[in-house]
């Protein structure tokens, strides 16, 4: 393993500490900071002449593993690390494949149009087959170039060979880094815009006079509702969302924007859901099977929605897609917060020291609920609406299979 360069070591350490102390919260925020940090690491990394991609991948993995270990619950960190690894692999392939003899686009520019377009298609096909698991889609597309395609997968591994053949080494080595950093910047841009991209679809889902129920607060949800408010008038019922009670804040924000808002207690969810047309909630993470990790209490909402056949819609950015499958999510993907959020310190002190004969009281304060995919009606992501059953395919689009398990 290659360690990160010493000058960015400090900022990595700093971020890891913050993660460990849970000082960075919210998946979008975490994802952004992770991407920025990795961009810094990559740009500071001195690259050898050969095996640049491998070195970059190594460095990103090393830093990434540290960050993941610092807060294994914040799946967005792992997701961003995987996304960046995927960017590196993709850039690497697209840089090296032109070097493969006979497919170079630049060398063919004075030849006929058909030839160049053919070769471009070949490059694309090579890229795809190199990076993605074989699928029906890929199989059909790679038919026109049966000879070149098999060569391509070897490219990323044996890139040193092809690199040595290419004339201008420096330009290529510079190009890889530059392209990767550009890719990360694009990713950051996506993260920045995902709220508005999700919100753009609001009008398709929220109808006039609908009653929408939600729990707690999420920024994408706020923007989603406000976007719909521009065209439609509807009502929102907000469960306050113990123990953070962010529903209070959301209700205030929405009411200030002129949206008819009703705050209910969490326990009244079942009572109210019979009059609700749609449940729209934000998520913490979306697992590979289409299950959702969401703020605590959401499972109850999902069950109540299912009982009354109310659509349960989850807003999620692509950065929340996690290629892992949930195994015992209530324990392994959950965070236990301080009991002080539920019971004040000293609240029970009088009866605790009287009553305890070795008996203790537990005050449980979990952070997340896991919602199985069968309770979710729809995901609305920045790339459109998807079924829970389609999530695995989305994941294949954004991550490389070799990164699913990082080690």
């Amino acid at each position, binding site marked *: 393993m290659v360690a990160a360069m010493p000058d960015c070591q400090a900022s990595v350490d700093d971020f890891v500490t913050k993660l460990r102390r849970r000082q960075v919260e919210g998946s979008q925020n975490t994802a952004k900071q992770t991407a920025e940090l990795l961009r810094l690491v990559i740009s500071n990394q001195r690259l050898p002449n050969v095996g640049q991609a491998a070195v970059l991948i190594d460095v990103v993995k090393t830093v990434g593993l540290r960050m993941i270990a610092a807060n294994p619950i914040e799946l967005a960190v792992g997701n961003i690390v995987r996304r960046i690894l995927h960017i590196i692999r993709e850039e690497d392939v697209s840089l090296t494949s032109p070097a493969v003899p006979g497919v170079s686009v630049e060398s063919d520019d004075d030849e006929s149009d058909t030839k160049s377009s053919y070769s471009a298609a070949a490059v694309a096909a090579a890229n795809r087959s190199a990076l993605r698991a074989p699928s029906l889609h890929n199989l059909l597309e790679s038919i026109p170039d049966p000879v070149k395609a098999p060569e391509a997968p070897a490219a990323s591994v044996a890139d040193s060979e092809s690199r040595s053949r290419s004339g201008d080494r420096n330009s290529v080595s510079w190009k890889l880094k530059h392209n990767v950093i550009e890719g990360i910047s694009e990713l950051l841009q996506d993260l920045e815009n995902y709220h508005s991209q999700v919100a753009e679809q609001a009008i398709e889902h929220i109808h006039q006079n609908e009653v929408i129920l939600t729990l707690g607060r999420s920024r994408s949800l706020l923007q989603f509702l406000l976007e719909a408010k521009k065209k439609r008038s509807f009502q929102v019922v907000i469960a*306050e*969302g*113990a*123990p953070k*009670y962010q529903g*209070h*804040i959301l*209700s*205030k924000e*929405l*009411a*200030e924007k*002129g*949206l*008819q*808002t*009703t*705050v*209910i*207690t*969490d*326990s*009244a*969810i*079942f*009572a*109210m859901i*019979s*009059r609700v047309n749609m449940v729209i909630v934000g998520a913490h993470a979306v697992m590979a099977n289409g299950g959702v990790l969401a703020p*605590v*209490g959401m*499972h*109850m909402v999902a*069950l*109540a929605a299912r*009982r009354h056949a109310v659509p349960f819609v989850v807003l999620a950015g692509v950065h929340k897609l996690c290629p892992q499958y949930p195994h015992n999510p*209530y324990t392994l993907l*959950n965070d236990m917060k301080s009991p*002080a959020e*539920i*019971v*004040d310190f000293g*609240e*029970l002190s009088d*009866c*605790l020291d*009287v*009553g*305890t*004969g070795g*008996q*203790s*009281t*537990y*005050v*449980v*304060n*979990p952070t997340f*609920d896991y919602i199985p995919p069968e309770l979710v009606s729809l995901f609305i992501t920045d790339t459109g609406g998807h079924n829970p059953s389609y999530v695995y395919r989305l994941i294949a689009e954004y991550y490389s299979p070799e990164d699913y398990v990082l080690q």
Partner: protein
Amino acid sequence: MDSRRRSVVIGPKVRQVGFVTPNADIPGDGSGMEKEVLNLTANSPTPVTIVPTRPVIEVPQKTEPVAVPSPSTRRPVDVEIPSAPAGSYNPADPVLEGSSLPSSKGGSTINEGYSVASEGAAESSPLGKPGTTTVGFSERVKHKASDPTIATVPAEGGVPGGKPVKGSKVSNQAIPALAGVDSKSSGAPPADGSKPLKERTSKAERRAKQEADRAAKQAAREGAAGTGAAGGDNSQPKNSKGKKDVVSEKKGAQAPERKGTDKSSEKEKKMEVPAPRLQFDDKERVAKAKRRSLVEQTETKNRVELFRHLPQFVYGTQLPSLEAKFFQDCATHPHPAVYKVGLQYLTGDIVGGNSRCVAMLMALRSMIMDYETPAEKTLVRDLVTRTNNHVNFLISCRPLSISMGNAIRFLKARIAKLDPTLPEVEAKANLVAQIDAFMQEKIVFADKEIIKHAVTKIRDGDVVLTHGYSSIVEMILVRAKEMGKKFRVVIIDSRPKLEGRRLLRSLLSKDIHCTYTHTNATSYIMQEVTRVFLGAASVLANGTVYSRVGTACVAMVAHAYGVPVMICCETYKFHERVQLDSITSNELGDPDALVKVAGWKESALVGWAENDQLQLLNLTYDATPADYVSMIITELGMVPPTSVPVILREYRKEPTL
């Protein structure tokens, strides 16, 4: 007109319908009895439309100074159930006080003043010890005889109390005027007046009613102008108008009564069906009810549209007017014991289905003990009216729970069934004994039986989950612990009442291992739970469990995880009504209770009422569908929810009810 005639015709036959009067041939005073039975049909949850014909409740004048109760007095009631186990309903449990306002000693004198009476009653409570009770009564009777106020009230029939709203306004100086007019007024026949008289006066009556309505509207306007103003000054303009106005007012008071009987006669045929509740989005009827009510209430701002049909008043606005009226010696004034209980409902000092019901029965009991039949009245008739008045007062403090409705229905049936030839003292002793028996059998013994059943469902190693605070669940858990069972308890709590803390404290003091968390974590904690025990406010005929809000959520999650849900409920809380959701019938709590988060310094919702787009909804109950319930544990045994109608059917046949 038509309906009136019909009511007269079908009178005796229809009287037999329903469970109220199994033996229809009640000797003597036919018309009077008819009225009673009819009144019964319009009983409980709907505010009864009967106004007392001659309300003469004398507040026994205590010599000792009595302080006005303030909202801050959180002194628990002295209500005692004879031989209640472990005092579990006893609202005297100081646990709740943790969150309470700073308590002052102000109200304690009141409690002391009347606890004497209630304790005296409690002594005599074991069924049928008329001897002791009579002694108590005779004392009281003497006390009353010496009361000078009695002399000022004319004994002739037909002095109407006016509408209770104006009870304060038509104060003492108005009463002689009324009495003077009384004999002339054609529209005020003696309430037990014969049929022809009714028909003759009907036209005049209607006119009178119109006038009364107009007068009431005016009064309401005036009232709105000066809400805070106490009693007397508002009555000034009315009095200045002189006799005619007074007459009309009086007639108006009579009219609703007549109307009430008519309505009930129409309903008589479908007596089995519980009476429809007052829908608060029905403007006419609400206005009518408002006029009748003793309490001034202000509607909350920013009402949730979906819940327009339910009453919601600004928390505590009733209190000042009620306090001001505590010493009023007005004819319609409720009995002090009832008044006290009403205030306690209002301030939230008494909560929980059983404790509220017991407190109400105790209050009504002391009302009955202090009752004395006015001249030219029959006890049976007058007492039902009186009871209705008191119940209306309690409703204006807080809507009745279903258990209370059932208890009132029982009491009124008992009064109606009294033998009119019985001497007053015996009749009262009889009623008191009946009330005691009801509390004993339906609540105390029933709970013991339920505990016996439920404890068998707790095994060693169980993790029992419960929600909020239910007295019966608490007793079950304590009993199981006493039996040496090894189990632990998960308590789910919900805002804003956080009743679970009360249970947590009580269980901790019994050395039971507890886990405490909030509603949202139910899904998380349910994985380790093996049993769910829940209390209920009522079980409806379709098996729906009507209980404190959050019960449905807990039951749903338990159902999803395959954990058996057991509902513990006495059969007196069962009700014939059916309900599919929690919206059609519910109770709205104080929305401001949501604003403050326990342990937080600030809340985002402060000043919510300024934004009319923002509404807070604080539901009190919800309805759990029957399919989430594995079993309902009653004193009659453990039954599936589908058997609820069976129990209802059999139970209503029971001779005791």
